[in-house]
């Protein structure tokens, strides 16, 4: 995983956020209280500075409530950064209370990126569960963009949610399902009367779809229990630990490798991650 060289910010406060305006709020899932916020920086310098790639995150803050690390769910090929946020703690609750037009603090982008160059010329398999799609969506949109699509071979997306109401990014899902150059599969843990698709857990669907491991990279993101079984499933399908990419979540504060919170073994998830290969994860203490 490549470390991203930050822009020179030597004499600048690393902790002072740039300010951005919320220009759109999309309710992704009413069941899970998950919304996507589209932001626009108040000044040009901040917009210029916020050059990100899929996999990275930012520290979002509401003055008075505090900061939280949130993965960037948009692709740099899109005009504005987007963040998909589930109402969970103090900060995310404060963000959910904001409306279009309100200001929000943004620090970043931080962290490494998905291994974009390593993935070139390969078949790509996405395996996502629930809000785990948020960081992967950035990469999916990036790869499907006209200027990048030819660099990657077959793209397969396997996505699962607890219930039909839990699917996020429905507008994207519809589009991916319709595209000729994407193989899209979805499942729900538990169906309801309106749902006609597949029922079952993501690892089962993975087993059914059985993507080939030759010349492929699999990326997985989702709840820990799902990841555990997806890793087993991928291994059974012949994927080596180097061919499997995931992201780790740890509590974070500074985002720049100082505050010590996200330390696992010799790694700091905020600067050495959040993207890790399964090979790297196998070599670190099981403390995540």
């Amino acid at each position, binding site marked *: 995983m490549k470390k991203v060289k930050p822009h020179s910010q030597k004499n600048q406060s690393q902790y002072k*956020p740039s300010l951005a305006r919320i220009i759109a709020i999309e309710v992704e899932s009413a069941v899970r209280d998950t919304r996507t916020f589209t932001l626009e920086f108040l000044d040009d310098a901040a917009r210029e500075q916020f050059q990100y790639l899929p996999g990275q995150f930012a520290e979002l803050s509401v003055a008075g409530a505090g900061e939280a690390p949130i993965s960037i769910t948009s692709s740099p090929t899109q005009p504005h950064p987007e963040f998909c946020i589930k109402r969970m703690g103090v900060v995310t609750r404060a963000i959910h209370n904001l409306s279009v037009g309100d200001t929000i603090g943004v620090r970043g982008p931080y962290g490494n990126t998905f291994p974009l160059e390593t993935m070139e010329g390969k078949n790509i398999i996405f395996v996502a569960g629930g809000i785990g799609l948020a960081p992967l969506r950035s990469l999916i949109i990036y790869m499907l963009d006209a200027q990048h699509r030819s660099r990657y071979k077959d793209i397969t997306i396997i996505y699962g949610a607890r219930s039909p109401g839990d699917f996020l990014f429905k507008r994207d899902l519809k589009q991916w399902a319709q595209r000729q150059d994407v193989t899209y599969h979805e499942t729900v843990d538990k169906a309801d009367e309106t749902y006609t698709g597949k029922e079952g857990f993501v690892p089962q669907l993975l087993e059914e779809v059985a993507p080939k491991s030759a010349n492929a990279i699999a990326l997985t993101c989702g709840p820990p229990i799902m990841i555990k079984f997806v890793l087993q499933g991928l291994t059974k399908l012949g994927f080596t630990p180097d061919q499997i990419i995931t992201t780790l979540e740890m509590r974070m504060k500074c985002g720049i490798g100082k505050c010590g919170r996200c330390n696992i073994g010799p790694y700091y998830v905020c600067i050495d991650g959040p993207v890790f290969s399964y090979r790297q994860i196998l070599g670190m203490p099981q403390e995540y």
Partner: protein
Amino acid sequence: MAKDSTKHLTSKLLPKKNLEQFLDALLKQYDVIAPVEQNGFSRYQKITRGTECCLKYRLPRNSIKEFFLPQDETLFFFEPGAASLSDAPSAKREPIIFPVRPCDVRALTILDAVFDDEQFSDSYYVEKRRRMRLIGMACLEPDDTCFCETFDINSTDGTGCDLFLTEVEDSYIIDVLTTKGKTLIKTLADAPQELIQKKKQQVAARRKSQSLKLAEVQNFLKQCFESELWEEMAAKCLSCGACAFLCPTCHCFDITDDVAGKIGRRLRSWDCCMFPKFTLHASGHNPRTKHAQRLRQRIMHKFSYFPENKSLIACVGCGRCVVACPVNLDIREILSTLASSTHPASP
């Protein structure tokens, strides 16, 4: 750290009886931070008069880190609801710390590796570090809890200081090590050759602090991650964090917002990997719920992970944690116990 990288400019003489006067002179121009006697110990704090400085105790209870990474620090101000941020005002007078022991100076190089690294330089820390003048003092006689020798710290070497004092009879010989230091001792006379010779003899004959035989500490700790000893050793740990707060190299912090009326501040304040909520996710998941896991994290970070990343052991053997622990956990014993569990032959 290079043993003899100190550029020695000249040596001055300060009779001990003139110390207060010397500090009073510094106070005219600088903020002076010095040990002040409390109830049976001393504490580094800002002094207003030379007489407040107390050298009765070798190491003040607190380390000097709080003058570079304050326990609470305002990162910036904001007005709740308003879309603007303003910087915290910076101190006007330049500060001096007197006296700093070589272990604490080494601790600063460890903090430098964190806060002034290539990728992200922390302007709050770096600015304080740049402004600070350090007047060091040699340790000729270690305390029982000192173990700086373990980490190859020469307690009579002033590397990293602007001035460095060594006690000789009823005077201090002041080695002037930087041009910044030179400006502080303009009025002092040169030290006589005879005393300089005596200083050399004393330094050569000094009683060294104890040294733990910790050959390849990083390697034996790697074998210890799954050890059952962690549970045993942590059984009495209260997770109070005294060790980390007094440690000169522990630097974990939290970032929170504080609002009082119309004034809001984003604060950074000390935190500690020994606290149960340190790694608590918003989801409720917590990767380190047990004392043993957290004690292991603190030890592994100092002696295995940090050295792997920065080529420095993040402990300087000052012994503050040994003195302060309310249940007598002793980091020296923890290390020797782990070392002997992997190499039964060599303690």
